[in-house]
C-alpha cells in the first residue's frame, strides 16, 4: 500500500516536471537553434563559432540576460549534409520552438535553411558559409550574414593585388563553388582595377586533392608572375606544403584567402612557406588593441586556445541578438530585424555594423603575407594592411540587383 502511494507520487512528480519545464522555458528564455557541422574536417572552424557564441551568451546571461530573459541555445550536427541540416532546422523550429536559427559552415545547407527561415519568418544568422548567393540572389529580409562571403573576399584581394606589379596571372583552385566563386570575383575585380592583367592559364583540382605536386610542377613550367590559388579547407595546408617542397613559394608568389590565418599556419609550425599572400578577417595578435587583447584573454581562459575568425563571428552574433532585442524593447522577430538594420556595436577589432539594405555584417578585412616572428613558434601575418568594409563590400545596389 505504502509502496504504491510512493510510486504514484513520484510518477506524478515526474510528469509534473515535464509539464512545467517547457512552460517556463517558453516564458523566460530566448532560444537560439544552431545547426552546424560538428563532425569531420569542418570542425576546425565550427567549434570556434560555437565557443565564441557561448562566451558572449555566458557574459550576457551573467548580467541578467536580455529584457530579463536568458539566452539559451541548442545545437544540431548536420554532418555537412544539406538535407539533414534542413530537417534539423525544421525540428528546431517546430519542436524546440526556437526564436532564432544560426549556422552553418555548409553553404548549401545555409541556402536550404535560409529558404525555410524565409517561409517561417524567422531570423537566420549565417556564421561561416561563404556563398555570395546567401545575401545575394537568394537573400531576403530574415537573413543576416555574419561573416565575409566570396564576393567580398575576391574584391578585397583584388584591391590589394592591383597595387602589386604582377601582370601574368595563373588561376588555380579547388573545383567546387567556393573555389570558383572566389577566383571569379577576384579576377573580375582585378581586371576592372588593372586592365592590363593577363590570364596565363587555369588549373582546377578536385576537392580534397592530397598531392598538389603535379599541378605545381606544371604551373612552374608555365612561369606566370603570380598565382591565385582558390583553395579551401584542408587544401590550404596541402597547397602550402607542396609549394614549399617544390620551391614554388620561393619562385612565384601566390595568394590564398585565409593563407595567413591561424588555422592554416599553426599546424605547420616553422615549416610553413614564407611570403604567401592572404586575406583574413581576424587575428588574435592584430590589431594589438586593448579590446582585442581582452577578448583573446577571455577566450583563452575559457577554452585554452587562441580565438580564430569563427570565434569573432559567433561572439558578435550573440552580442547583436542581445542588443537587437534590447533596442526593440520586446522579444519580437520583426522588431529585432528592424533594430538590427544599421546597428553598430563595439567588437574586439573595432566598431562593426550590420548594413541595413542587405543585412551583411561590415567587418574589416586584413591583407598580409606569411612571415616568421620570434614571438611565436609558427608563422604569422606580416605587413598587414586593413581594408575597410566600405572599400571591399559590393554596394547595396549590386547586391539587391541580383536578388529575386
Amino acid at each position, binding site marked *: 500500500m505504502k509502496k504504491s502511494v510512493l510510486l504514484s507520487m513520484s510518477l506524478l512528480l515526474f510528469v509534473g516536471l515535464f509539464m512545467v519545464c517547457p512552460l517556463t522555458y517558453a516564458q523566460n528564455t530566448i532560444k537560439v537553434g544552431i545547426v552546424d557541422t560538428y563532425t569531420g574536417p569542418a570542425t576546425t572552424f565550427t567549434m570556434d563559432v560555437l565557443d565564441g557564441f557561448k562566451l558572449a551568451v555566458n557574459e550576457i546571461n551573467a548580467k541578467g540576460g536580455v529584457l530579463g530573459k536568458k539566452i539559451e541555445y541548442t545545437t544540431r550536427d548536420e554532418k555537412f549534409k544539406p538535407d539533414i541540416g534542413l530537417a534539423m532546422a525544421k525540428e528546431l523550429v517546430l519542436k524546440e520552438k526556437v526564436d532564432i536559427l544560426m549556422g552553418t559552415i555548409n553553404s548549401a545547407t545555409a541556402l536550404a535553411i535560409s529558404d525555410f527561415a524565409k517561409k517561417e519568418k524567422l531570423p537566420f544568422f549565417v556564421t561561416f558559409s561563404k556563398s555570395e548567393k546567401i545575401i545575394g540572389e537568394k537573400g531576403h529580409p530574415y537573413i543576416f550574414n555574419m561573416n565575409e562571403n566570396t564576393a567580398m573576399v575576391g574584391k578585397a584581394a583584388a584591391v590589394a593585388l592591383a597595387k602589386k606589379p604582377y601582370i601574368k596571372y595563373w588561376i588555380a583552385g579547388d573545383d567546387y563553388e567556393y573555389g570558383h566563386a572566389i577566383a571569379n570575383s577576384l579576377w573580375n575585380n582585378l581586371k576592372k582595377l588593372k586592365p592590363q592583367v593577363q590570364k596565363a592559364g*587555369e588549373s582546377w583540382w578536385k576537392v580534397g586533392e592530397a598531392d598538389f*605536386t603535379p599541378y605545381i610542377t606544371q604551373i612552374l*613550367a608555365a612561369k606566370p608572375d603570380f598565382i591565385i590559388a582558390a583553395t579551401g579547407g584542408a587544401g590550404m*595546408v*596541402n597547397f602550402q606544403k607542396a609549394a614549399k617542397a617544390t*620551391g614554388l613559394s620561393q619562385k612565384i608568389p601566390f595568394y590564398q584567402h585565409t593563407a595567413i590565418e591561424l588555422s592554416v599556419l599553426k599546424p605547420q609550425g616553422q615549416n610553413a612557406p614564407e611570403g604567401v599572400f592572404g586575406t583574413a578577417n581576424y587575428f588574435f595578435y592584430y590589431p594589438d588593441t586593448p579590446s582585442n587583447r581582452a577578448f583573446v584573454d577571455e577566450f583563452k581562459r575559457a577554452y585554452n586556445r587562441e580565438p580564430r575568425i569563427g570565434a569573432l563571428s559567433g561572439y558578435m552574433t550573440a552580442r547583436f541578438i542581445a542588443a537587437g532585442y534590447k533596442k526593440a524593447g520586446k522579444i519580437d522577430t520583426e522588431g529585432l530585424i528592424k533594430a538590427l538594420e544599421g546597428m553598430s556595436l563595439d567588437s574586439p577589432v573595432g566598431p562593426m555594423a550590420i548594413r541595413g539594405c542587405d543585412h551583411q555584417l561590415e567587418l574589416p578585412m586584413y591583407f598580409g603575407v606569411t612571415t616568421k616572428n620570434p614571438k611565436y613558434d609558427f608563422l604569422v601575418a606580416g605587413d598587414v594592411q586593413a581594408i575597410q568594409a566600405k572599400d571591399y563590400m559590393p554596394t547595396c545596389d549590386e547586391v539587391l540587383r541580383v536578388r529575386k
Partner: protein
Amino acid sequence: MEAVYSIIPAGVLSQVFVGLSRTTILFIVASGLTLILGVLRIPNVAHGSLYMIGAFTAFTVTKLSGGGSAGFWIALVIAPLIVALISLIAERGMFQFLYEREHLMLLLLTFAFSLVFGDLVKLVWGGEYKSVPVPHIFQGFVPLFGGLPFPLYNLFLLLAGPVVAILLYLLTNKTKMGKIARAAAVDREMVGAVGINVSRVFATVFVIGCYLAGLGGVLVAPTVSVTLGMDHNLIIEAFLIVIMGGLGNIWGALLGALIFGLTQSLGILIWPKFGIIFPYLAVVVVLLFRPTGLLKSTW
C-alpha cells in the same frame, strides 16, 4: 640529357616522375586493399580510415619525439605497427566471425567501421589540421630535368615504392604463408581441407593489408595536412585502382596505380583546367575494354 629532352621535353619528364611518386602512395594503399579483397573477400571501406590513423599516429609519434626528423623515421617504423595492431583487434574481435557473410553486408559493416574510426580520430586528435614536417634530409628540392625543381621527398617516395613492391613479391611468392594465402584466395575450403589453419592465415593477411594502409598514411603525412576526411578521398581512388587492376591482384594494383598516377600528372600538363578527369577517364576506358580489370581477378 640534352639528347633526351629533344625526344621528350623536360616538362613531360618532370610530370612523369611526379606522377610516379604519387603512384607510390596509391600502390602501397591499394595493394593492401586488394590483398584483403582477394584473400578474405572483404571490400574493406575502413581501409582508408586505417590510412588516416597511420597519418595521425605519425603526427603524434613525430611530436612526442621532439618534432625533429628523427621523429619521422621512428614514426615510419611504429605507426604502421600500431595500425596493424588495431586491425588485429578488429579482425579477431569481429571480422573472423563474418567471413561467410554476403559481400554487401561486409561492405556495410566496414563502412560503419569507417564512420566509427572517423569519430574516434576526432575524439583523440580533435578537428584541427595537423602537419608532419618533411624529414630534414629530404627538405627542399633539386633542379632536375632542365632546371625544373623536383621535391626531394618525392625522390624518396620514388625509391620507397619499388622497395615495397619487391618485399610484397617476396612475401606472396617466396614464403609459405604467401603461397597458402594465394591458394586460399582461389579455394578456401580446399586449403582448410588439407589441414591448414585458414583462420590464422586470414588474420595474418588482414593485418599485413592494414599495415600497408598505415604505411601509406605515414609516407603521405609530410606532403599533406593530416586531417579528418583524408580517408574518404583516398578510399575512392584506391577502390578504382583495385577494380581497374583486377580484384585481388597485387600486380593489378601496381598497374592501376601507375595508370592513375601517370594519367593524372600528364593530364594536368595537357589540359590543366580539366586535369581532374583524366584518371577517371582512364578507369572508364579500361573497364569498357576489360570489364574484369587488366589482370586476372582472383574472384
